[in-house]
């Protein structure tokens, strides 16, 4: 087990990358702590699988270094790195039994048979396949096969890290929850460094200690789920995380007030004069109905009852604005104003968050 350092890392699939846009993975400098569970979150094609393959050694980066602890492993292959990886689609050895499949990585390393048998038993009970150890892997259902793949990924105890590339895509929803819980338990028990790639925010937020949000080949934010929720550093993090995502409204900011289409909105801090495309962002959780002259005039489109709360869909200056209202709260027919909690409003210039001059109640971090 080791801490993983990405030093000045970048990758392009083209042999001679020219500009920034040729890179599938733009410059990365990160240190990933030993024994932590990370989730790599992002939409399809954002470079998360590329990053994962670079860490596992299936891909050599065009630029930069990877260090496990103090050891530079950039040029080392997967075997030397001693990494386990689980892929999006199940990979099982059809002609082997389930038990042989689980034992395969251990046998390849010439482990003691008694140890292998014990280890296989343990993993089998974890993935709930003790009854099937003798059965051939061929002809099993996709989720059974994926469980075997997961088991094979976890059977080695001495790995530096376990990487998961959207491993639960083919698994039934109820099984997903169960397996994720087991992965989490396994992480707590053995303390492996785990990196989990997903495009599902629920999966990322429940699994990981730290979430790495990627967008367009770049890591836009690395933080705990709370940090991603409270202070999204990039508009992408704002609207990608949360359901519905953050409301973003074009604005002009002067001092501690934002002006949106002629309406003043108080902010939680004051800002220096800003250049570029300025937006304010507020999570629907911090938007409430207002009455009288308070707040922003909007056109309410509809209210969706999703059980634990209601989602109010409205429109301001032609752009959607959402609010989350408590369960059972009735929305008066004539309501047409929404107010934002000032200390929860973030200000973005060209998609990146700007720190106010005077810090407010929430922990603020340096804008990038």
């Amino acid at each position, binding site marked *: 087990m080791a801490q993983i350092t990405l030093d000045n890392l970048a990758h392009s699939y083209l042999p001679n990358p020219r500009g920034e846009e040729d890179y599938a993975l733009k410059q990365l400098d990160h240190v990933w702590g030993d024994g932590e569970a990370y989730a790599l979150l992002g939409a399809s094609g954002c470079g998360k699988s590329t990053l994962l393959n670079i860490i596992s050694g299936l891909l050599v980066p065009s630029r930069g270094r990877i260090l496990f602890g103090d050891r530079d492993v950039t040029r080392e292959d997967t075997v030397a790195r001693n990494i386990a990886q689980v892929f*999006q689609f199940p*990979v099982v050895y059809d002609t082997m039994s389930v038990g042989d499949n689980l034992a*395969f990585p251990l046998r390849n390393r010439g482990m003691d048979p008694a140890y292998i048998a014990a280890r296989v038993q343990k993993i089998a009970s974890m993935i709930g396949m003790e009854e099937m150890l003798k059965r051939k892997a061929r002809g099993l259902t996709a989720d059974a096969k994926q469980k075997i793949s997961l088991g094979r990924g976890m059977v080695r105890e001495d790995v530096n890290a376990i990487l998961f590339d959207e491993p639960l895509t083919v698994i039934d929803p109820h099984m997903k929850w169960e397996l994720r819980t087991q992965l989490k338990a396994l992480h707590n028990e053995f303390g492996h460094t785990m990196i989990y790639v997903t495009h599902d925010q629920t999966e990322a937020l429940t699994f990981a200690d730290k979430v790495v949000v990627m967008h367009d080949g770049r890591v836009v934010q690395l933080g705990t789920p709370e940090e991603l929720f409270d202070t999204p550093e990039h508009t992408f993090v704002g609207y990608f995380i949360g359901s519905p995502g953050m409301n973003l409204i074009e604005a002009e900011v002067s001092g501690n007030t934002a002006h949106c289409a002629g309406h003043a909105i108080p902010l939680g801090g004051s800002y220096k004069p800003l250049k570029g495309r300025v937006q304010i962002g507020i999570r629907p959780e911090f938007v409430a109905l207002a009455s009288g002259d308070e707040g922003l005039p909007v056109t309410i489109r509809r209210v969706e009852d999703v059980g634990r709360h209601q989602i109010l869909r409205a429109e301001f200056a032609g752009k959607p604005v959402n609010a989350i209202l408590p369960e059972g709260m009735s929305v008066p027919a004539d309501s047409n104003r929404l107010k934002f909690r000032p200390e929860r409003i973030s200000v973005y210039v060209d998609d990146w968050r700007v720190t106010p001059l005077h810090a407010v109640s929430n922990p603020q971090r340096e804008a990038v």
Partner: protein
Amino acid sequence: MDKIQNNKAWFLVLPVLVLVAFSAVIPLMTVVNYSVQDTFGNNVFFWEGLTWFQDVLTSRQVHSALGRQLMFSGIILAIQIPLGILIALCMPKRGVWASVCLVLMALPLLIPWNVVGTIWQILGRTDIGALGYTLNSLGINWNYSRNPVHAWIIVVTMDVWHWTSLVALLAYAGLQSIPQAYYQAAKIDQASRWKVFRYIELPKMQGVLLIAILLRFMDSFMIYTEPFVVTGGGPGTATSFLSIDLVKMALGQFDLGPAAAFSIMYFLVILLVSWVFYTVMTNLDKAEGR
């Protein structure tokens, strides 16, 4: 929509029926006809029952031809299948060279049988053939028209040259269909090259290899043109395979009755072996899945 019932529609099938009758059923029935009768010409036939079948079944000549035939099929399967797999494994997976290899591999398959025979017949000659001449000048007393072993070597080599490509192309197609994730997973599991072959590539190729074995068995079991052109079945009867014997019997000696009986049994044997082979392989497949 109402379905219109009109039995006259059956007439639409008539052209196909006529075609199949002329192309397959009637010629086959002629053979059946000859196999149970005898004739001295003038279209006068005598009923013989199963006499011809008994004759053929007890004929030592047919027995030894069958033995040679089985040996030939066995040898070429034992060479072509592993060799084809090996070539497929060595072929580049993508890029310009993959296409070049595919075209090169396909070339022998496009050459007509008798041309292949002629090529090797000339190649093996000691006077004007590159192969025969070279062997002779290396001090090997090469003579495929006198030495049965040499005759076998040249016939087998020719078939390997002609048909290994087919196995290689089929195996290559099987290999290409394996998702990259399997190789990556094997790498991560630290599997050796042999284990990758044994547990990933071979199982994934099983389907196409089954077809390759079946095709090569049937084809080699029916081989006629190439050995006929190269050795004419000789020296002696050393390379007289079933079909060569059959043609000698039917056209050489004009024994139409025994030849017809021989044909029918030949056909049935191929059908039977193929069927048994196919059933066994598919059942193995199912049993494993259980």
